[in-house]
């Protein structure tokens, strides 16, 4: 078992790495705690071009079949809780025992940040990703009528997916401003970030609008004249001038209290109104799920454009710990296609280490492919993702860490 490469995470990054390694005749074991392989790709569903859909379930199945045909081993429904290094070997502690490898790839993806709002522990309140998975993967409606709190790329995309499945979205609104919702509750900042999803909207009006708003003055104008009941995107009112101040219900969600807010995020007194809903989604954005890298001893750097604290790594997807690699959203929040491309880079780097026939040139081409994929990505979680990637590259170069061996 010692010669096998182990990958934690069967999302797009892990699957593509597994396939690339297996194509080079390297034995691979993929460990994942979810019910099925595919990671967060499973729930994804959007129209790339008119009539062409990115269907995460189909993509996941395709990847899984390819991996299985190359004899990649899968251990699903298995959670990893700790990593240890003894001599040259990584010890992986899981709910199904300890596994060992010299080459370990962490492809654990991302998690959603919540924002606490009064009433948010009521059954029926869930993260927006939870509603996506319930709807597209399990095919169970999260409820009849929902309110989404948090206006961002992910919540806009998922609102559309809910509607496609026949689930009513009463509104997408902001959270009420408090210390923990900063940025997410300021209409101007949110409007700024929304300009980057506008291209996903089918309505030519919204698209033209987003071009007009690319300068600051127009943005301020846009907010001040922003209709209090919102504009409609995919027929769902997006309410940048309303905020949810409380989620209400006795034993389950029964509705939310909505208030009108000023452009600075403060509440217009007396404007509170109660609207009905049987589920509420909280959309606080994504951050890299990197606990395992932290347990392994990786140094971390906070890079806003990448979504939070990122384990130090280079373009070849190596960390500064020998035999430990990273790929996918653990290195920064981006779409599934970038994760796929990064998985390939990591796998080629590992095969080079194993002398299994990957040249520096192969790796370079794979890195270029990541860059190309990034440049043409349909979904961009941060408009300045490139600057974030650049920053990590620089930190790596400056820290000039000789490979740590312990």
């Amino acid at each position: 078992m010692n010669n096998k490469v182990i990958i934690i995470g069967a999302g797009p990054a892990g699957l593509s790495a597994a396939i690339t390694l297996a194509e080079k005749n390297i034995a691979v074991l993929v460990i994942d705690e979810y019910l099925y392989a595919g990671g967060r790709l499973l729930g994804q569903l959007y129209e790339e071009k008119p009539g062409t859909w990115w269907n995460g379930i189909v993509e996941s199945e395709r990847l899984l079949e390819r991996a299985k045909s190359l004899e990649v081993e899968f251990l699903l429904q298995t959670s990893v809780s700790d990593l240890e290094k003894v001599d040259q070997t990584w010890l992986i502690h899981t709910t199904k025992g300890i596994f060992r490898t010299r080459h370990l790839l962490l492809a654990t993806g991302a998690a959603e940040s919540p924002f606490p709002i009064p009433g948010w522990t009521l059954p029926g309140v869930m993260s927006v990703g939870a509603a996506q998975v319930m709807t597209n993967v399990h095919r169970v409606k999260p409820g009849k009528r929902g309110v989404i709190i948090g206006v961002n790329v992910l919540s806009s995309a998922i609102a559309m997916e809910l509607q496609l499945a026949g689930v009513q979205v009463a509104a997408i609104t902001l959270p009420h401003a408090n210390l923990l919702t900063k940025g997410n509750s300021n209409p101007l900042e949110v409007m700024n970030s929304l300009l980057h999803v506008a291209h996903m909207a089918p309505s030519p009006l919204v698209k033209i609008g987003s071009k007009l708003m690319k300068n600051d003055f127009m943005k301020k104008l846009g907010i001040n004249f922003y209709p209090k009941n919102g504009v409609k995107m995919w027929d769902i009112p997006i309410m940048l001038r309303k905020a949810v101040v409380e989620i209400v219900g006795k034993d389950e969600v029964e509705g939310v209290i909505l208030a009108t807010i000023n452009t600075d995020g403060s509440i217009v007194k007396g404007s509170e109104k109660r609207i009905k809903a049987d589920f509420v989604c909280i959309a606080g954005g994504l951050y890299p799920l990197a606990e395992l890298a932290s347990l392994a001893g990786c140094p971390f750097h906070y890079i806003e454009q990448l979504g939070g604290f990122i384990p130090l790594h280079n373009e070849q997807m190596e960390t500064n710990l020998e035999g430990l690699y990273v790929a996918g959203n653990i290195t920064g929040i981006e779409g599934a296609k970038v994760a796929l491309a990064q998985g390939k880079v990591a796998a080629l780097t590992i095969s080079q280490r194993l002398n299994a026939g990957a040249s520096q040139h192969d790796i370079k081409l794979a890195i270029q492919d990541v860059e190309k994929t990034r440049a043409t990505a349909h979904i961009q979680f941060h408009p300045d993702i490139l600057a974030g990637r650049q920053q990590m590259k620089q930190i790596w170069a400056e820290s000039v860490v000789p490979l740590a061996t312990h």
Partner: protein
Amino acid sequence: MTERIMSHPVLGNLILKEKVTFTFDEQVFEGYEGESLAAALLAQGIRTLRLHEETGQPRGIYCNIGHCFECRVNVNGLEGERACLTPISDGMVVKSGQTLPTSVRDWRKNLEQ
């Protein structure tokens, strides 16, 4: 009551696996082999999976992908299992989490009265 999405304009018709039965707090429920416990219960209108250990407030799923542990239940005698990651199987016995005794707090409360 929520419902299953039987047909979907892009994802197509729902292909259901074999029907199984399981119990949740002694009540019998149906579901489909291998689907998540959280999904099977929600499809039958059950959102509350446990009561908070201390306050007794109801709790249900939050993240639905194994990160938050809000959905923890007792499955076949095992405590702390995540309903969103647990595939159901025939004859499975599930129990919701209940309030636990808080003896020190209760003792103090009684003392203050």
